């Protein structure tokens, strides 16, 4: 410890626990020219260990392993489970949740939370259904929804940043507002008959070999790709991580903390609006009580995907993985037949517990 600052006569670990310094992945690592010495196997072993115990990568790897394991178990137990289409259906059925989880990831990375997403999904469905009913064109309705939900996010963000209202409470208010507005629009289900929407709902994009996806999947994948790029490669994205790591430090580093903190809620609002549109592609109706509790699914997906609820660590792709884990559990319960649907909630709760404790252990070790 004391002589680790000495002249580099021998390549020493500059880090307390070894850990991340030796890893070749992640932003800004790699070109470490002098990582020689020691047996290769031992190094790989310790590399895997430090990878698993890192708060940055550990939970994501566990989630990936879990997903593969559950998928394999499903494949062994049920006929027809182990097929490409079952996997693609995970994406088809959960594309709206993937978009929601992307927005939620931005928020949680800054150490915030957004409880309003489920209600905003319902609201944008209601807006879409009611406006389409009166004959508006989808080309106007969809952008309008995205603008409105982004503005709602903006208001929430301003409330949190300017008025120092806790994210929990501010997004709670937005949730009340959005749900209430749903009822103001209509208390009953409105079905959508607009040809464009119907077309988008039934459209299948063949991938060859009897495999196909929906347009929603393409939109969700595009959102994920943009989010990955933004978080990894832009100053805005790195500021999102910086706020989660230490808002005060970020300020002292001259990062645009205020703007970023507000923007993550705008992004979450936008994603909720988009998820709402995707959801209407799926259901072809607007109903005030849709997506009750979806915010919990989104939060669960983000947490299971390895994002630390206190902020600072996590990946969008992890959250996608989290959604897939939730989806595959749902699929297994469907395949099982005898298991009732409420087991899903219990499983999600148990998974949350496991991952929260895992996060706790990993961050405690580092301190």
């Amino acid at each position, binding site marked *: 410890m004391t002589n680790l600052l000495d002249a580099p006569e021998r390549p020493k670990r500059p880090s307390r626990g070894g850990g991340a310094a030796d890893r070749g992945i992640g932003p800004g690592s790699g070109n470490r020219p002098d990582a020689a010495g020691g047996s290769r196997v031992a190094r790989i072993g310790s590399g895997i260990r430090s990878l698993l115990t890192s708060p940055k990568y550990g939970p994501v790897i566990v989630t990936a392993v879990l997903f593969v394991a559950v998928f394999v178990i499903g494949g062994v137990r049920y006929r027809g489970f182990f097929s490409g289409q079952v996997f693609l259906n995970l994406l088809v059925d959960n594309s709206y949740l993937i978009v929601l989880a992307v927005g939620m990831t931005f928020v949680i990375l800054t150490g915030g939370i957004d409880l309003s997403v489920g209600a905003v999904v319902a609201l944008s469905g209601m807006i879409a259904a009611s406006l389409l009913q009166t004959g508006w064109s989808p080309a106007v309705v969809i952008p309008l929804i995205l603008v409105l939900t982004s503005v709602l996010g903006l208001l929430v963000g301003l409330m949190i940043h300017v008025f120092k209202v806790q994210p929990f*409470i501010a997004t709670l208010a937005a949730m009340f*507002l959005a749900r209430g507005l749903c009822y103001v629009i209509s208390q009953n289900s409105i079905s959508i008959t607009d040809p464009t929407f119907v077309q988008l709902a039934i459209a299948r994009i063949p991938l060859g070999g009897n495999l196909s996806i929906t347009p929603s999947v393409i939109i969700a994948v595009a959102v994920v790709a943009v989010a990955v790029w933004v978080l990894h490669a832009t100053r805005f994205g790195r500021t999102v991580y910086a706020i989660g790591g230490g808002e005060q430090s970020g300020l002292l580093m001259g990062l645009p903390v205020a703007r970023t903190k507000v923007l993550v809620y705008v992004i979450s609002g936008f994603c909720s609006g988009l998820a709402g549109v995707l959801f209407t592609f799926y259901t072809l109706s607007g109903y005030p009580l849709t997506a009750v509790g979806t915010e919990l699914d989104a939060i669960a997906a983000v947490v299971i995907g390895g994002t630390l609820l206190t902020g600072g660590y996590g990946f969008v792709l992890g959250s996608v993985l989290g959604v897939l884990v939730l989806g595959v559990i749902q699929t297994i319960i469907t395949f099982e037949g005898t298991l009732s649907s409420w087991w899903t909630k219990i499983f999600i709760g148990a998974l949350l517990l496991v991952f929260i404790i895992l996060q706790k252990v990993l961050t405690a070790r580092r301190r």
Partner: protein
Amino acid sequence: MSAVLAKVVAHRLFWPVVMLLILFTINLIAFPGFFTISVRDGHLFGSLIDILRNGAPTLIIAVGMTLVIATRGIDLSVGAVAAISGAVACSIILGSPEPGSLATVAVAVSVALLISLVLGVWNGFLVAVLGIQPIIATLILMTAGRGVAMLITEGQILTVNSPPFKFLGSGFWFGVPIAVIIAAVVFGLAALITRRTALGMFIESVGINPEASRQAGVRARGLLFAVYTFCAFCAAIAGLILTANTAAADANNTGLFIELDAILAVVIGGTSLAGGRYSLLGTLVGALVIQTLVTTVYTVGIPPIATMVFKAAVVTVVCLLQSPTTAEAFSGVRRRLALRAGKGVAAS
């Protein structure tokens, strides 16, 4: 004179009470008979009684929530716990050969309350022993709890035909609704236990400065177990009242969003979500504000379903009023006014 006024305005209950009075006034204008309480069949009737009765479950949960929030915590699982307790009680009553007997109901209620204690201890364990952030720790039970409730009801809505159980929700005692009496007892007990013993001081002290409290010998762990258990207990009582009121356990909808109403009541009552000093009286006022708001929406003739929009408005207004930014802006204005009056800093 102005000093007295300033003191009244500065009192933590000032804004909540003002809000309640405004709501009362709106009601009085829209519905002149708002304050009349009549006696029919030996029971008290009237809008105020309705507010009290319908607000009782929220108030009961909010009392437990106040103590949890005072320790810097939060309990999101109360709705799920309410659903579980309702489901447990109804399934026991349904499974018994004599659903109408007092003994059956007593057993059902006791078992439901006992289970809630276990759930509270679970939350307390996650928070106090494992040291998980309360909002996250209780999120687990919030998610899984509804599943457990559905597991108990097997996905059905359990309708029971049991007069003694129904009495819990809609009965009267000396003309007063049972639910109101239960809420009063819970409120009174909580106030008595925390203020007559040192519990209240310890809760506040742990909420304000956990490390200083530890060094002063305060056992936070036991305290956290106590408040989360009490909160779950309150949630179970509220769940039983709600279930008894409709004589049906609905795992999906019993106590849905009630955690938010309860938290809202606490916040309106002036207890900070950052923990520390709490006011049970404030919570009472907060719960009344919420219920009166709902009633007002009914009386004024707005579609009742739009209540949530008004709740959103109330949350926003309360949060903005309590915001440090607003306080700074206010004091800035006041200072400028004082300067203009040539009195310098005397007023600030």
